[in-house]
């Protein structure tokens, strides 16, 4: 399987194949790692490669990203099919990125709605105020645009991941 991966500024082509011994051959850029991966369940793995053992936990983080937690640090890794990535970066992106649904990042309660459907907003403008753990947090517009829809009402309790509004 061919992949495109990104960690911070670093972008690489990657390839994963099963090797004959029940392990994996993982190529990152042009470096080949022979990896023994034992799945511990719930996204946790014990990985043995290049003479070390590391326990990591891998969890989905957004649509195309994975959060990899090690013993003392965590990393966000973007991962995609290379063709899909290519399409996304050469024009396909526009149609995908135009409609942005913004979701609650954690459970809480909507205490105020600061914009109306149809309003023109700028990047960084507060749209919804969410209260969680006795703290109020403003959910901001990520880009300039128009509010296409607002999915919540003042006073409503929301779960993490619930859509709040859509930006066009």
């Amino acid at each position, binding site marked *: 399987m061919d992949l495109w991966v990104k*960690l911070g500024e670093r972008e690489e082509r990657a390839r994963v194949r099963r090797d004959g011994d029940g392990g994996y051959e993982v190529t990152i850029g042009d470096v080949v790692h022979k990896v023994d991966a034992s799945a511990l369940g*719930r996204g946790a793995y014990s990985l043995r490669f290049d003479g070390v053992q590391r326990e990591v936990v891998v969890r989905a983080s957004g649509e195309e990203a994975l959060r990899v937690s*090690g013993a*003392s640090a965590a*990393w966000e*890794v973007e991962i995609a099919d290379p063709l899909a990535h290519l399409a996304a970066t050469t024009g396909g992106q526009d149609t995908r990125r135009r409609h942005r649904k913004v979701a609650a990042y954690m459970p809480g309660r909507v205490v105020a709605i600061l914009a109306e459907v149809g309003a023109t907003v700028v990047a960084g403008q507060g749209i919804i105020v969410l209260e*969680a753990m006795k703290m109020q947090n403003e959910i901001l517009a990520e880009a300039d645009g128009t509010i296409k829809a607002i999915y919540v009402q003042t006073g409503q309790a929301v779960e993490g991941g619930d859509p709040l509004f859509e930006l066009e």
Partner: protein
Amino acid sequence: MPTPPPIARKLKKVLIANRGEIAVRVLRTLREMGIRSAVIYSEPDRQSLPVLLADEAYPIGPAPSRESYLKGQEIVDLAKRIGADAIHPGYGFLSERSEFARMCREAGVVFIGPSPEAMDAMGSKVESRRRMIDAGVPVVPGGRDPLADAAGAAEFADSIGYPVMIKASAGGGGKGMRRVDSEAEIAAAFRGASAEALASFGDGAVYIEKFIVDPRHVEIQVMGDLHGRVVSLGERECSLQRRHQKVVEEAPSPVVSPDLRRRMGEAAVRAASAVGYANAGTCEFLLDADENFYFLEMNTRLQVEHPVTELVTGLDLVYTQIRVAEGEPLGPEFDDVQPRGHAIEVRLYAEDPFQKFKPSPGKIHLLRWPEGPGIRNDAGVYEGAEVSIHYDPMLAKLIVWAENRPRALDRLSRALAELRIEGIRTTAPLFRALLADPDFRSGNMNIGMLDRKLASGELHGLGTEESGDLPLIAAAIHHFERAQRATAVPRTTGRRTLWRAAGRRDALRPGGGRKG
């Protein structure tokens, strides 16, 4: 005014008027003592750890504290109804409300803590300062009396020594405040502060207080019995604070000598004795670089950070609280308590240190606590538990003990390497960053240090460790496995169906099927 010693009676059932880790902490000792434990819980806490561990559990109301954990009269009525003979208030919530202690007394339920009179005496800043001065306990030098003029200000400042702080009598918010380092500046500072106070508060009255340069927060744990005896159990260093919230606590303090410990302990005992204090309490002091210490306030309850004292003294403070409440005198083990080894506690919060400590509630998807030599973990959560948005986001206290401070730091580092919490973000990376900080490692701390280091970004080498290909390899394998599963099992074929098919295959096999 000391309360007459009650007839000693053994407690049979204790109601814990709290939640989270402290409720768990208290009920553990109750169980060891063979005392029945009852807890209260709000609606979202039905599946919380204290409920699961308690002998009895009672709903007390909806999520907001004022409609549940703060309903003093309901809690006292509940204690009566279920036949609990005492209430342990933990910390926070009702623990320092003297009216709650009075309600307990009126209902004939033992309040495991000091008398309401002692709580009142220590609860008022003005009253407690006056009493401490009378009892010979050092307080931050200065006078609340307004100064007449610049000459009076100079004379007073001279009597307590520079640097001093001029403060507005009607003040607040830094208005009318001036730090003055020498006599040359005092007249101008007095006039400036007075004018600013007049403009801000309509009252130009100002007073002078000693300015303590970069103090440490060092507190003394005291314990008193109902027979008038109060002892010191030594100090805790709590100088690492973020916005006045303690973050790391240790015992003993890296800078307190045996002589200073004795002097601070004696002052704390005088402070507690002055108000007829019984049960567990803590006297907080500011300590300067010249070993001067100044009483700040007394916390009339068990503290969050009590475990570090337990680890270096070998005492169980909750056990002692209960024995004291039963009317037992403090025994010979309290005669001359000295610390042994070194203990450090870190408070693990559901907050993201990379995003300005934004709260991070949610489900704890995976959890593995550190274990092994010298590690204690006081937690209020378990794997699969939901960290609620309604309460203080402290998840647990991780406490280590070792024979000396350098070893304790290494042990803390090892413990943090073993800790695994997934699903929510925690403050663990902050402690890893602190362990790499030369000031913390050398014990060089003051109450402003952590905020300064966080603001300057000095600690935000946090978590940026050289990763190599590890995250990419892990992500690639996980992605590969996910894709394999998605193609191997068509979406329409649920897991259950496969199990059923397998079960049918087994049943059809000769001699198959599950029996007995």
